[in-house]
């Protein structure tokens, strides 16, 4: 009974969010009138066999036909910092669309002007992921394991300088990806997505969506620095909105256009470098079920510093397997 009530509440919330977003652009449209969302082709109820997500679905792991994900995030910025991360995810079905997601993430960064580079240690995550049968919402939350890791310049301030540059450049203010830690740490993470059903506007078929979430350390984490391990909070929050363009006229475009904002909340950054703030615009394309990509460009600033904004450009590629 309580489970049913909770499910009802979640659905009601998702529907309200969907409607609110939809009304901003298409007040005349309603969920009942709109063409079926992409996800509707997957299944209509949780008990029915799922179908593979079509091309144009941009948040795919854990959905039918997308139980393996290999993603690559590459970015560079005006300071000539280059970042690269790889993310491998495996979704295991628990029941219906509810999956257990296991992730492993690793990568590196380099400051080309200074000839500095570092391999960044792996991050493992274990989470639960669920999405609505209509794809109006999806949610994932879990725990991340951030093992201790030693970089080549940990005894020098340039290690943190490189990490900050990576945070500003990568378009992802997830500091745990770029810092080295002297002890193993844990973070909780969560992300939530809501979308409208698709609707038509002149020759366009659209959907509107938002995504938000973040990471937060459960206990203080120890960042390696030239001053020795510095204990503090490591976390971040992001928000993005997107307009989906599955069709333009009669053509399948499978595009997504949106904006992304993210802030690092980590306490390790000195006060002159606190709260790195990132904003970028992106265009996504998922021409086939097994591939989606996103290119982005934007800027990052340090709100407590007088430094000019750092520009950033990047590409995210994601490959899926059933």
């Amino acid at each position: 009974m309580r489970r049913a009530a909770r499910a009802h509440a979640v659905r009601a919330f998702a529907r309200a969010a969907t409607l609110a977003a939809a009304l901003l652009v298409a007040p005349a449209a309603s969920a009942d009138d709109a063409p079926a969302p992409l996800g509707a082709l997957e299944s209509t109820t949780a008990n029915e066999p799922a179908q593979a997500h079509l091309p144009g679905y941009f948040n795919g792991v854990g959905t039918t036909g997308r139980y393996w994900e290999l993603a690559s995030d590459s970015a560079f910025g005006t300071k000539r910092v280059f970042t690269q991360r790889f993310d491998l995810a495996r979704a295991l079905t628990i029941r219906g669309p509810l999956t257990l997601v296991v992730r492993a993430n690793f990568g590196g960064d380099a400051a080309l002007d200074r000839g500095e580079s570092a391999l960044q240690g792996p991050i493992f995550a274990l989470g639960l992921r669920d999405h609505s049968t209509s794809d109006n919402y999806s949610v994932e939350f879990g725990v991340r394991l951030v093992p201790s890791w030693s970089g080549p310049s940990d005894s020098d301030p340039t290690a943190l300088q490189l990490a900050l540059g990576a945070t500003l450049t990568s378009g992802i203010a997830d500091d745990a990806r770029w810092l080295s830690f002297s002890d193993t740490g844990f973070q909780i993470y969560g992300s939530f997505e809501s979308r409208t059903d698709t609707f038509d506007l002149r020759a366009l078929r659209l959907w509107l969506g938002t995504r938000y979430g973040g990471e937060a350390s459960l206990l203080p984490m120890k960042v390696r620095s030239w001053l020795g391990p510095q204990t503090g909070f490591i976390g971040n929050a992001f928000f993005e909105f997107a307009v989906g363009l599955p069709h333009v006229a009669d053509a399948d475009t499978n595009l997504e256009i949106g904006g992304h904002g993210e802030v690092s909340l980590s306490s390790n950054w000195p006060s002159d470098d606190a709260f790195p703030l990132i904003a970028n615009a992106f265009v996504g394309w998922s021409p086939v079920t097994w591939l989606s990509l996103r290119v982005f460009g934007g800027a990052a600033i340090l709100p407590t510093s007088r430094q000019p904004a750092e520009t950033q450009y990047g590409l995210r590629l994601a490959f899926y397997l059933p």
Partner: protein
Amino acid sequence: VFAVGLVTTAAATGCASTASDPVACAQVPPQVTDAPDGAVWGFADLHAHPAIERAFGGRLIWGTAVDPEPVSGAALPRIDACPVETHDRDLTSPIDRAVGAELFPNVAQLAGFAHAPVGSLGFRPATAWPNARDIIHQQMNVASIRRAYEGGLRLMFASTTDDQALSALLSGPNLLDGFVPDPHADFASAKAQLDLIQQIVEQNRDWMWIARSPQDARQIIGEGKLAVVLSLEMNGLLEGDTDTLIADYGVRHVLPIHLVDNDVGGTAANGDLFNASSAAVSSIYRSDKAPQRYLSVEATPAYGRPLDWPQQIATLTPAPLYVGLGTIPYSQYATLCYEPLVACQGVAVAGVSFLEFGQQNVKGLCSTEAECASPGEHPGAARIRHLLDEQVMVDVTHMSARAAQETIDVDSPAPLIASHGDIAHLCRGAGAGCVDDARRPPTERSLDVDAAAAIVARQGVLGLGSGVGNYNARAVLAARGGPLFMLTPDPQGRSGCVTEDAATGCAVAPKAGVVDPATPIASIQVRTLGGVSGFGPNAHPFVRVAMRGARPLDQTEDRVIVHPLDCSTGGCAASIDLGGVDLAVDATSACGPAAPACSASSCASYTVDDIERVTLEWLYLGCDGACQAQYGTAVADDQCQSTWSGDGAPSWTLDAVDLEATAASAAALPLVHLAPPDGFLVATLFQERGSLVVYERDDRPDTAADVLATGHLLKVSLRAAPGAAPLAGASPAQVGANVCVALRSSATGACAAAPPIADGATECPRSDGWVSLNQRGSWAPNVTLYTFVRSAVPEATICGVDVAVLDWDAASPPLPVDEVRVEAIDDPLGHWVRRYAQVIRRVAAGRLGTVAFGTDFNGLNGMMDIAENEPAQTSLASACPLRGAQADAGADASPLPMAPMRFRNADGTLGDAIRLDERGLATYGLLADFLEAVREYPGCGQDVHDSLMLSAEATIRAWEALLDPTRPPPPPLPARTFECGAPPGLTP
């Protein structure tokens, strides 16, 4: 009955006014019979920083001037507990805290005072705050200003200050781009501080108000209130920004130049930290926008040598800014001419000698060397004239000697001010009756006596500083080593000791008085026992001898001899013929005056007393192609240094050191014999300790025998070794180590150790002669801390020092101590009184009021750090008869006695008294006590007191002359003789 009750109540609360509703005093007419009619009675402080908490990004000074409790001049409000790592209230970054933990001990050391937590901690050291030497906690809260006012303060120049490079250091690392100078940073800081000063005045408008004209000042003081003049002491305000502050806030007093060279002109050479700061902002103040330009100095015998190898605050992009202050490379240093570098410019090992003089900034009212070299008036003169045209009082304090003189030379009859500092070369050109207490060359920061006299002649006024360490001292005992002993977390308490007797097992201090200092000498011999390993990369052991030239004590001219040591596996030796015949080079620096180091006749006329300092040191010579091929090109930048940052191998063990002079009669004169007990070394010279001073003239007790010290007040100093791990002090999270020191005495026979400290004790037992050195504050490497001990035994019987550390974490590493000194000091307060008398006699013919206080409270300087005696509290009469309701009750008929200022306890009751003879000039309020102690000084005390109490009048007159330079001069203020008697306790 009611009046009696009121008096009793006021006396009990210790305040002339009620605590909850302080009111203005009734203005008292001048208490000297020959003062002109209409003169105001009250003292002026020409320089103080009440709003300092808003400076330095709010990250340096803890505490607030705005009292949360009822204002009472007899009750010091409580202060919140401060985190010891950083004073940024909102800080969460652990890296900022870690950087602060490295930085704050070094800031605190500017006044030789460990940074200990203050506030409401259970283990708060009782002497940590307030203390005259504490420069990083607010000392001018409103209660303190109120007490100074009740003691006679009637005119206060409330000044702003800042230093953006120091602020950047305090703000922690900037990982992105390092330090970027901002031409408007000082403007923003000044506004924030002026806002706070205005807030303070508004909240206390019943007894203080801002004076924007001399008429305002007379009216405000006439109403019995404190007149506040808004003042700017910023490193570099652009002209438009200054004008804005003058127009918007009513600023009426400006120091155009502060701690850095700016677009107006050159600063007085005044220490390495602000030289680094000057370089960090040079790109925004120089007309050619050149970055990283350090002070350009020229050699002069007139001043001391405040500038050493410069540090670099902000490493250049892309390296991040962090707290480690690096030194600039040799290639850059060699262009600065800060010292003759002939000793290390060759690649061959050879001895040299050269003359070494003091330093002064070459810049006057100009921002580049090219501008300064041009004839005629320099660009900064227009800025000075503009300020005078704006009817702003211009202050020459902090200007270079040339800039001050050029300011005086600006074509204007307007009076000038020199608000805070000392006067240099007081007796130059004066008659035989002139007395000058100064025993050391001043820095350029002191105003030249001719400039001071010129300012006074133009109706200007001077402010005499009351800063830390402003007194003379004579050595009682001094020991040097590297280290002398290791302090360990020993549960038994006593961890180290120094005595004159090697048999005690302690480190040995050389015995005093073994040779007659007047003995003529011909040569000096150095012998060391212990091996030398590794001479590369091109490092060699040298001995450096500095011989004092035949100049007065207040001038600098040393003949420096840098001589190679002849080393074998067993030790090293050198014999230095002071006639110079054995030296390969006898040269002057290309940067210094063209004069020979000495002639054969002058070199032959040295006495023991002329030996200024003898130092053993590694010295890097030039690294030629072969050397660089072997060790890498980086070693080129080690040239001329005695310490280095690389992993080079040189290590020099000193098992024993003998220093002798050979008399002209060929007799050997032992100067130093350092031979520690078995198992101990004198020192090991290596990467971080590349030099060791083995002889210092000031270590000899007979050197300053004429210092007016009673032998009762002793200063005990200890220096932690370089490269050591810091001793962990208290914080809100830990109790911290408590370092206690006590003197040994042979008054009853043998050199007796101080009574042992009982097991489990946590405080230094004062009753047994132990006093705390660090107030539980952290003790950083290479930092000298000192404390004061009052001795009941004759000075000559003091034979050693014991050191113990209580509450020390047993897991802590040992702390090596390199130096221990015991000095008898003359009473700092008496020294100040005598100095005041000397200055006003010399530059103002004893005209009362011409010299005011220039306290520089809250100015990162530390205040007068102790007084030998406390003024008699029963005679501490308030200059604050009451007005209003209290006056109606008859209480204004005569001033009420002032009670001591006391701590306000958490329950509102009053605690211990805050005493001058324990904490020095610890809060602004103690100016009242200081003034009373001045009055009690034998002979000139009453004259100095009366002169100070007419200093507000003299300052207002200067201001009036600025507004109307053509007005007829008012009747002169009376003059006095200022003849001082002997200090209390001394016979003439």
